[in-house]
C-alpha cells in the first residue's frame, strides 16, 4: 500500500496583506443596481435553495447577511469572497457559473447587505476585486 503524505503541519495561516490606504472598500459604490438585478436572478436560481430567500442561511448553509457573514469577511477583500464563491459554489456543482455570473451574484449579495450601489460594475477579474476591501463597518464620515 502506498503511504499517504499529508503534511498539514507546515501550513501557515493565510497571511492578510494590509490593503493600501488608497484602495476602495465596499462602501465606495463598487457595483451597479443593474448588476445587482442580474445577480438576483442568478441567486434565485442557483443559491437561494440553500442560503435562503432572505440570504439568512439555513442549518446547512451559512447566512450571507448579518454578524457571522460580516465577521467572516471583514478585513479581507472582495477578491477573497469572489474566489470562495467561484471555486466552491454552488455546492452541488462548483465552477458551474462563469466569472461574470459570479461577479453579478456578488453584486447582489452586497446590495442585499445594504452596501451602496455606484456607477461602475463589479469586475469579474479577481485581481481587480482584490483591490476592494470588505469592511463591515460603515466609515464614519459617510453617513
Amino acid at each position, binding site marked *: *500500500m*502506498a*503511504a*499517504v503524505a*499529508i503534511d*498539514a*503541519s507546515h*501550513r501557515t*495561516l*493565510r497571511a*492578510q496583506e494590509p490593503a493600501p490606504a488608497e484602495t476602495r472598500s465596499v462602501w465606495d459604490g463598487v457595483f451597479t443596481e443593474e448588476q*445587482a*438585478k442580474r445577480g*438576483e436572478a442568478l*441567486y*434565485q*436560481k*442557483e443559491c*437561494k*435553495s*440553500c442560503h*435562503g*430567500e*432572505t*440570504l439568512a442561511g*439555513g*442549518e*446547512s*448553509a*451559512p447566512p450571507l*447577511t*448579518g*454578524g*457571522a457573514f*460580516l*465577521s*467572516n*469577511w*471583514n*478585513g*479581507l477583500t472582495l477578491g*477573497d*469572497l469572489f474566489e*470562495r464563491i467561484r471555486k*466552491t459554489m*454552488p*455546492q*452541488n456543482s*462548483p465552477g458551474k457559473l462563469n466569472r461574470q455570473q459570479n461577479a453579478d451574484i456578488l453584486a*447582489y449579495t452586497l*446590495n*442585499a447587505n*445594504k452596501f451602496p450601489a455606484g456607477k461602475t460594475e463589479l469586475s469579474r477579474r479577481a485581481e481587480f476585486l482584490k483591490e476592494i476591501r470588505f469592511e*463591515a*463597518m*460603515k466609515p*464614519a464620515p459617510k453617513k
Partner: protein
Amino acid sequence: MLRGKTSSWRLGILWVSAGLALLPAQTSAQYRAKDTEWPSYAADLAGTRYRPLEQINASNFNDLEIAWRIKTDNFGNRPEYKLEGTPLMINDVLYATAGSRRAVIALDAATGELLWTHGEHEGARGGAAPRQLSGRGLAYWSDGKEERIFYVTPGYRLICLNAKTGMLVATFGNGGALDLKLDDDQTIFPDLTTGEIGIQSAPVVAKDTVIVGAAFREGMTPKSIKNNKGYVRGFDVRTGRRLWIFHTIPKKGEFGYDTWLNDSAEYTGNTGVWTQITVDEQLGLVYLPVESPTSDYYGGQRPGNNLFGESLVCVDLKTGKRKWHFQLVHHPLWDMDISSAPILADIVVDGKPIKAVAQPSKQGFLYVFDRITGKPVWPIEEQKVEVGSVPGEWYAPTQPIPTKPPAYSRNGVSIDDLIDFNAELHEQAKTIASKYHLGPVFTPPVESKADGPLGTLTLGTASGGTNWPGGSYDPEKHVVYVYACNACVEPIGLVPAPKDVSDLNYIAGVAGHEVSILRGPGENAGADSPMPPKKAAASSYVRMNVDGLPLIKPPYGTITAIGLDEGKILWQIAHGETPEVVRNYPAFKERNIPRTGQQTYNIGTLVTKTLVIAGEGQVTTTADHPRGAMLRAYDKATGKEVGAVYMPAPQSGSPMTYMVKGKQYIVVAVSGGPYSGEYIAYSLPAPGE
C-alpha cells in the same frame, strides 16, 4: 464508482503504532474507556463532554501551542467549509470524520500522522442526500480484542470498519455496510437513490448495540405534508442484524397514534432523531431527543399533539420498547426540535439522590427528569399559551414550562430585548419590531401580511438557544455548562403555499415575496417547476439589524453554569469577543462596552477538572490577536476567563481532550468563511521549550 460493498477507496493503510502493542489486554465484554480517552462523540454515553484532566489548567492555558493540525480539503473532491466533527481518541489513535466525502481518518493522536483513511463513493445517492458534508463523528466498539468504527454515510448507509486497518468488516451487514433505507418498517419513497432520509450525527454504540436515528431536509418549506419517517433502530454491532426499531410516529394501534388526528400519522414524516442519542448502559435505557414533524412552522395538516414530535423518549436498550416519554412541545410549530444530547446526571436534590437526565434546548429551558421514571425533578407546569390565527392551524392550548431551573437564554422577544445602546438605535429597532408580532416563548407564527405583521419575531426557535453542540456536565460538582445564542432572532411568517410549490396549506415565507423551497446543499436545484412571478427585490427584506448592529441587545451569546442539585443558575458569562461592528461603531468609540459575546449558535463546550473550554464562533481582529477566533478557557467554578489561545478560524465542531504519553491535548474543528475545515490539536510545550 457506485456505492456498494466494494466501493470504498483507500488511499493507503498503515498500521505502525508501536503504542498499540503495549496496550493492556481488555478482558471485559465491553471496552471500558479510561479517563484519558474520548471514546464517544460526547466523551461518554452520558453526553457530558467531560474528562477529569488537569495538565492544561488556568496557569498554563495561554501557553498552549499547536501540536499538530490536519486540513480536511483532500478528504473529498472539494474542500468543506463547515467541519462539525468531534473526534474520538482510543488507544492513542484519534478517529474523525473529515471532508466533503465524509471520510473516516485515523491519526496518531500524539503526532497527527495519518494512519489510514476510508471513504465511500455513493454516486447519485450521495449527491441526493439531505445531510451532506463530513457530519459530526463516529462511534467506537471493542470487545477487548476486536475494535470497530461505525459511521453513517451521507447516503444513509451504516459502515463498520476495522479500527486497526480502516478496512470494511466483511461479516457486518452486507460486506461491512448496512443500507439504512431498507428494513425500516416503511418503504422509503420515491426510491432508494433519491428517497429523503439521512443523518449527520454520530451513531451511538452501547454494549453490543449500535443505534442510529434519522434526519431530513430542513422543514420550513417542504414540498409535501407527506415524507419519510425518522424511526430509530438498534443493530447488533457484530452482524448488523436489526435488534429493534422505535416508531417516532406511532403506527396504528401503537401508543400515541391518537395524538395525530385525521389519520395524519399515516402520511406525516420527519420526526427523526437527528442529534446525539444518550444511553445509560447500567440501567439499559436509551434517551431519544426527537425532532419536529413535517412541517416546522405549520401543522394544520397534522392536527393533534403529535407524539413523539419534540419529545424526550426513553426506550429499553435491548428491545427499543418505550419506557417513558415527555413531550417538551405539544403540536410543534417553532422548529424547536430537541436539538442536542440529553445529559445524564446523578444529582442530589433536598438530600435525595436522583438519577436524572437534563435536556438543554433551543428554547433555553433545561428540562430535568428522573431518568428512570420520567418524572420531572422540579414541576413542569402546563401553562396557557397564545392561540394563533393561521387558517387551518390546530393549536395546543397549553405548553409545559419548567419551574426550575430558570431559562438560561432568551426565548421570546419583547421591546426590552431590542438594542438599547442609545435611544436612537432603540427607536430604530422598535420601528423594525413594529412590523412583527412579538411575544414570550411559544408565541405562535402568524400569517405574513404586507402591511404587517410580516411574521412573529422569535428567539429560541430554529437556531436556538442551544442547538446541536448541546451542553456539557461536570459529574463531580453536578453542574451543567451550556452555550446559548441569545440574539439569533428568527422571524417566522407563513404564506399560502402555491400548489405548484407544496401541498401544504401554508409554508414559511414573507408576504409579497416569491415562495420557494429551502434545500440542503448538494441537491439538484434544476428540477423545480416554475415559480410564481410575484416578487420583490431581496434588498427590500427587513434585516434583523439596526445600522449594521444586531437588532437584539447583548449578550449575544452566553455560557451558563447550572447547578443541578439546586436547579439554579450559578453563573452566566458572555462568550466571545465583541464583534467589530459593535466594538468599532463610531458612536461607541469612547464607550467601554462590556464584552457582548457573539451572535452564533453552534458552539459546544468542553469540561475538564477545572476548566470550561469553548472557541468563538466568529472572527475578530483585536489589539491582542490577528484576524481569527479565540479558544477560551474559564474557571468552571466562577466563569472567570483564565486563558485564551488563537485559532485561525471559528470553532465549527466542539472541542475534545485526551492524554497520550503523559501529555494532554485539546482538539477542535475550525472552519468558516474563507477558511476550509481543519482539526487543530493543542498541547503544552515540553519543559524548556
